[in-house]
């Protein structure tokens, strides 16, 4: 893969210039966490590089929490999203399969994907619940994003992933090709160090190829036990980069509002006839695992869990998916 570099000051200047023509989002630390901010000139120096992971999943840029899907919407500026961790980038695989499905393409999703440049960042660190490698996801991007950014000292290093990314680097940013093989191998060594650290940290977790079998063969007792503190709030699905279930709400004028929904909410699958396959809380709780680890892998080419760990962080009932899997694997 081709690498380019540009001095941090020059990069920041370019970003400021791009604010005229683009909406740019980038992770900026706040007193609680790290999350995407709408970039402004004063925030540019505060942008975080090589840190996992913004509190919000990438999907919010492509499938908003709520939108009218029957009106054309505003013609917005092109979008640049910076600092996307690879767990979120890889989640686009299944989102694309669902929303760009040839028989029913969602034009709102497609237009957003087309006008967005995704600049991933290589994770040089990990958070408490990061476990991407246990799902076969690397902590750096080599596909689906357009570029990957790394900050080393005062140099911004850009790894080209797509043609769109190459055009951006060579024509818009006018960065220089990086031929320093030593620097490139130091970045690649860092990749491997983080990968090893993730593998060591999560060594008790089962391989993702085993997760479906483990979930499928589990007893009801384990789901009753682990869902005992679940309050059906749907935080796990809302924060998940691959969960995309939604509800269509009718508004006057035959308008439809598409709103994020969650299989954890009571009545999610209830039919007009009154049948409700997910009536009990433990059934809804298990449904999410069956969906992610059994049914979606049977139906789609891409995985439905990328090991970001946000569902663990977001759970107010302190349900830890990883502990559940460790118990299932015993």
């Amino acid at each position, binding site marked *: 893969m081709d690498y380019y570099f540009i001095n941090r000051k020059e990069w920041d200047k370019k970003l400021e210039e791009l604010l005229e023509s683009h909406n740019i989002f980038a992770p900026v630390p706040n007193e609680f966490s790290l999350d995407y901010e709408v970039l402004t000139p004063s925030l540019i120096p505060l942008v975080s590089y090589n840190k996992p992971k913004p509190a919000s999943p990438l999907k919010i840029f492509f499938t908003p929490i709520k939108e009218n899907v029957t009106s054309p919407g505003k013609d917005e500026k092109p979008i640049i999203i910076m600092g996307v961790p690879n767990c979120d980038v890889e989640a686009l695989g299944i989102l694309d399969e669902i929303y760009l*499905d040839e028989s029913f393409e*969602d034009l709102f999703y497609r237009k957003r994907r087309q006008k967005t440049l995704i600049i991933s960042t290589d994770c040089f660190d990990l958070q408490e619940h990061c476990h991407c490698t246990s799902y076969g996801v690397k902590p750096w991007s080599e596909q689906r994003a357009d570029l990957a950014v790394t900050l080393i000292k005062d140099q911004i290093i850009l790894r080209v992933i797509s043609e769109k990314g190459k055009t951006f680097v060579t024509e818009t940013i006018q960065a220089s090709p990086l031929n320093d093989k030593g620097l490139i191998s130091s970045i690649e060594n860092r990749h491997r160090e983080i990968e090893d650290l993730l593998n060591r940290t999560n060594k008790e977790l089962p391989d993702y190829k085993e997760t479906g079998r483990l979930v499928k063969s589990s007893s009801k007792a384990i789901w009753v036990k682990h869902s005992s503190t679940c309050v059906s709030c749907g935080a796990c699905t809302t924060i998940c980069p691959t969960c995309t279930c939604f509800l269509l709400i009718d508004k006057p004028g*035959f308008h439809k509002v598409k709103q994020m929904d969650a299989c954890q909410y009571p009545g999610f699958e209830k039919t007009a006839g009154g049948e409700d396959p997910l009536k009990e809380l433990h059934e809804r709780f298990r449904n999410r695992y069956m969906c992610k680890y059994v*049914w979606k892998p049977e139906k789609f080419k891409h995985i439905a869990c990328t090991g970001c760990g946000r569902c663990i962080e977001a759970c107010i009932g302190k349900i830890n998916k990883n502990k559940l899997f460790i118990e299932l694997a015993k």
Partner: protein
Amino acid sequence: MPAEKNIYKPIRAKLVDVIVESPTIKTFVLIPEEEFSFKTGQFIELSVDGIGEAPFTPSSSPLIKDKIEVTVMKTGYVTEYMHNLKPGVMMGIRGPYGRGYPVEKFHDKEILVVGGGCGFAPIRSLLYNLAAITDKLRKVTLCYGSKTPEECIYKPYITELKKIPKFEVLRTVDRADSTWTEKVGVVTVLLDDVKVDVKNSVAVVCGPPIMMKFSTLKLLEMGYPEHDIYLSMEKNMSCGLGKCGHCMMGKYFVCKDGPVFTYDEIKDQPHIWS
């Protein structure tokens, strides 16, 4: 340049007639403002402006292109609004969605159709389709069950059906009254009386989940292979596009992969009868 297809946007259809079928079931006759056609067994999302939409399989003939009929049982919020609608209002239609009945596979076969309650709606559409190709079929037997004689729907159509060569109609009710001259009992009692060459037959079942379950078990007992039993599944088909997740039945999106499945396709999936 033609406008891009928006999968969420309904087309408008004028409600031109409302037919009362039973105390809880009405048929809505609609004329879509744009070209609209469907294959029998496919479903549509029908909306009441600003109130909501719900999935229904049209009950009219797929061969009629200028109007569409939808039979609706009053069961909840949206259907209650529908039941109060008067001819002249505009409704919304999205679709058609999903996989319908593979009529071409029914050629040269005896077709045993088992329906219950409002499950007669998709079946009527199928029967219209089959009536147009009787020369290609061996026989069509309809076994229909409802709770009471009053709740038997499509009464004039039943009379019509009985006159069609190769068609046989058997009916039962759970609770008879003094006017009822046909069978009494759940729909499976009709299957005891059916004379059918199972080896050269397919079965089609549509109705409430409990009726579908016991009809399927009875058909299996009669010797129907699992791949020759066609079931029209009812799930919470909300978007119709294989995206919103509400109708997931194991690995299937019922809205896109169904709603018509053979029993062997779905027998290992969870919650098929609930």
